[in-house]
Structure formats: structure tokens, C-alpha cells
């Protein structure tokens, strides 16, 4: 890769966040991989409630794990993807609706998005499904920004100041920017961060609704989501968003990004903060 005379070493294909599709290669497998990541994030979200030894026998847990692996693997194949997504949705919706009032927004977003794939025989080839995800994610971004404006805790820096002093290991990463006096009157940096987050969500939402499909936009948003996940110590929602974006942009998810997402979901089971504390 040449940038104005400088030679920038090109990353190997397997390390690219966006799959590098060779001529004649089926891009569908990368798009199916993205939905697999979305399903995986949902599975990990529900996992703690499903593996309580006091609630379920160990046999049930093992059977569930085997079933989940088979379903996810089938969702990646061209022949069985639709039926695997349908099977997944039946079990997921049953579990989800059983405790709907306790479910997080992550679970709700999955309900709005993943089952719609069943409408199409080859959903990964359908621009209509990608459009649906794109518009839905745009609406969600605008909705999330509206909630922040309504709460009145972002534009004035209150929430960032709160997290900086009362948040968990990663949530207080911006504490160093301001003194403890920020609790009496949020400092400029915390106001800037709060305002930036709101404007970013509005911007991304509008760009998605407008149909911007640049890979640079996708890569930057993936980076932002990973950063936000690290900050909030919550990766499930971010992985789901990343996976759905990869489908919405019709480029799919590279193997490297899939491995990163799967690793983050594993770490997220106990929390990134605890992982960092353990390592450090």
C-alpha cells in the first residue's frame, strides 16, 4: 500500500477487520459468520441464567452447550443457515419472553433483528434484510442519543463525572482528566466527552439512515463500539451491534474480527474490569 511515497506494510488478509474477498469467492460465508457472532453474543448474554447449578442439572447444561454449538455451526452453512436461525430463535424467544421485564436492551435489539432473517431463504443475499438492519440500527442510535439528551446527564458532563469517580475499573478511565472538584461542577473534559458521545450517536444514526456505506465509516464505528464496550465494561451489546453492522454493510465479518469478538464475549462473562485487575 503506497501513501504519498511511503510504503505502508499491508496487513495479512486474516488480520483484516473486514473480510478480503478473492475473485469468485462467496461473500455469504462472511455475512453468515457475522450473524453467528450476533447469535453468540445473545447466547453469552443469557448464559449466566442458564448454567446455574442450583437451577439446572449438569446434563442439561452440557446438552444445551452441544445444541448451541451445532446450531451456530449450522447457521454458518449455506444449506442449513435459515433453519438454524429459526431453531435458535424459537429457543431464544421462549427464554426471552419468559422473563421479558428483566431483559436488557441488548436482548430486545436481538429480538427486533435476528428473527427477521427467517423471512428470507438466503437472508445473506437479501439487500432488504441488510437495509432493515441498517435502518433499525440508525433508529436505535438516534433513540439512544435522545435518551441521553432527555436524561440531561451527558451534555453537562454529569454522567461521565459520576462514572469517573464511582464507576468500575474501566468506567473510571477518564478520572485523570479532572480533579475531584468535577463532582461539584463537571469539568470541561467531562462535558466534552458527554457531548461528543451524544453527537457521535446522532451522527452515526443519521449516516446509517442516509445509507452511507463506506468501509472507513464501518471500521471507525467498529473501533468506537469496541472502545465504548471497554469503557462501559459491557461487550455483549457492542458485539451484537458490530455483527449487525457487518451484515448491514453487506461485507460480513472477517475471521480475525470474529475471533476478537468471541474472545471479548468470553472475557465479558466475568467483566473486563476483573480481567484487567487479574492481569495487572
Amino acid at each position: 500500500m503506497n501513501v504519498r511515497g511511503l510504503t505502508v506494510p499491508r496487513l495479512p488478509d486474516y488480520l483484516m477487520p473486514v473480510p478480503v474477498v478473492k475473485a469468485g469467492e462467496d461473500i455469504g460465508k462472511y455475512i453468515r459468520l457475522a450473524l453467528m457472532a450476533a447469535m453468540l453474543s445473545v447466547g453469552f448474554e443469557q448464559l449466566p441464567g442458564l448454567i446455574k447449578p442450583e437451577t439446572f442439572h449438569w446434563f442439561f447444561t452440557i446438552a444445551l452447550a452441544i445444541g448451541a454449538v451445532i446450531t451456530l455451526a449450522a447457521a454458518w452453512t449455506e444449506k442449513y443457515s435459515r433453519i438454524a436461525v429459526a431453531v435458535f430463535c424459537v429457543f431464544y424467544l421462549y427464554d426471552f419472553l419468559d422473563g421479558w421485564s428483566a431483559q436488557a436492551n441488548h436482548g430486545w435489539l436481538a429480538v427486533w433483528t435476528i428473527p427477521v432473517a427467517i423471512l428470507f431463504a438466503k437472508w445473506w443475499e437479501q439487500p432488504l434484510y441488510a437495509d432493515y438492519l441498517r435502518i433499525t440500527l440508525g433508529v436505535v442510535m438516534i433513540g439512544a442519543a435522545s435518551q441521553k439528551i432527555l436524561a440531561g446527564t451527558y451534555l453537562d458532563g454529569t454522567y461521565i463525572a459520576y462514572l469517573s469517580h464511582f464507576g468500575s475499573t474501566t468506567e473510571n478511565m477518564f478520572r485523570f482528566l479532572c480533579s475531584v472538584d468535577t463532582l461539584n461542577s463537571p469539568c470541561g473534559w467531562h462535558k466534552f466527552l458527554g457531548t461528543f458521545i451524544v453527537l457521535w450517536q446522532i451522527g452515526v444514526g443519521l449516516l446509517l439512515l442516509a445509507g452511507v456505506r463506506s468501509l472507513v465509516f464501518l471500521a471507525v464505528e467498529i473501533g468506537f463500539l469496541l472502545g465504548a464496550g471497554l469503557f462501559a465494561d459491557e461487550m455483549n451489546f457492542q458485539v451484537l451491534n458490530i455483527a449487525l453492522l457487518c451484515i448491514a454493510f453487506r461485507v460480513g465479518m472477517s475471521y480475525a474480527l470474529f475471533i476478537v469478538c468471541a474472545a471479548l464475549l468470553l472475557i465479558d462473562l466475568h467483566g473486563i474490569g476483573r480481567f484487567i485487575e487479574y492481569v495487572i
Partner: protein
Amino acid sequence: MLFRLPFSDPAGWSFRKAIIVGLVVLHSAWIVVHLNLVSRDLINPWKLSGYGMYTIPHPNPVLHVFDSRFAGFEIPSDTYKAYDIVSQNRFFIFRCQPITVASLQVFLNDNPKFVGVPLRFIVTELKLLRDPIRPEREPHSILEIRWTGQTTFDYAGKICGELYHGKAELKS
């Protein structure tokens, strides 16, 4: 590079496209309704598909049970079963919904040792206060029960500034 809007393949309408448009409209409308409910403090913004998480600390409602015979005596939470009363009240995500009579009956059936004991239920929530900015757990809802017979009791409570009361009977 832009999609052709509103859909990449604008040709005609189909059953599937109608479903997709319907879902987008429904989802968008619900987010507006959710915003309205949050603005009136009626629901927990972290729940119910409105994407209001991380706007305030999670309220994390907690039910406390007090024995009214002894002023200020909170019964240790590990000495009674509270999951059913909490789940029957939808984990208190509907912030102005009084504790239901049915859930009280379930609680007393789950914990028969409290039959005949005057109880006070207090639900607390974590709130973000200012000047200085700090999280603080505050009472949000209160309910008292007073026994009028072996299996009958009166209850009175207050939530979101509204008083409510009634009579109920134990059901097995």
C-alpha cells in the same frame, strides 16, 4: 457509496417489504413512547427496548422488609424468599405501579412465618444526585400490611406520591 433509499432494491412492494417497513415503524414508535414514559419517570430507562441504558445509574430496585413491631428493624434478606414478589412486580421496572395484592399473597405463602406479623415493605432505588454528584439509594415505594384476622389483612401504600389501600385475604 450510498444505498438507493429507502431501500437498495426499490422495485415494487412485497409482503416481506411490508413486514419490514411495519417493524421499523413499530420499533420507532415504541422508542418514542418509551422516551415519553421515561420523561414521566414511569419506567426504568435501562429496560423495555428504549435504549436508555447508561443515561443514569441503573436504579437496581431492592425490596426491604421491616417488622413493624420493632421500629426500624429490617428483616435480613437471607431469611425469607423474595424472588416471587419481585418477579411478580416485574422487577419494579414500572416505577409507579403499586405492589400487587397477588404478589403479597405469594410472598406470605412463600414465607408463612410472616402470617400475623405486621410488615412494612420499602422499595429503594439508586439515584444520581447532584451538588455534589453522587449515587444514593433512596426509598421509592412503601407498603404496610396490618392483620385484621387470622387470614385477612389491610394494606396501605404510597408510590409516586399516590396513596392506595385495600383489604385482602391469604390464598393458599
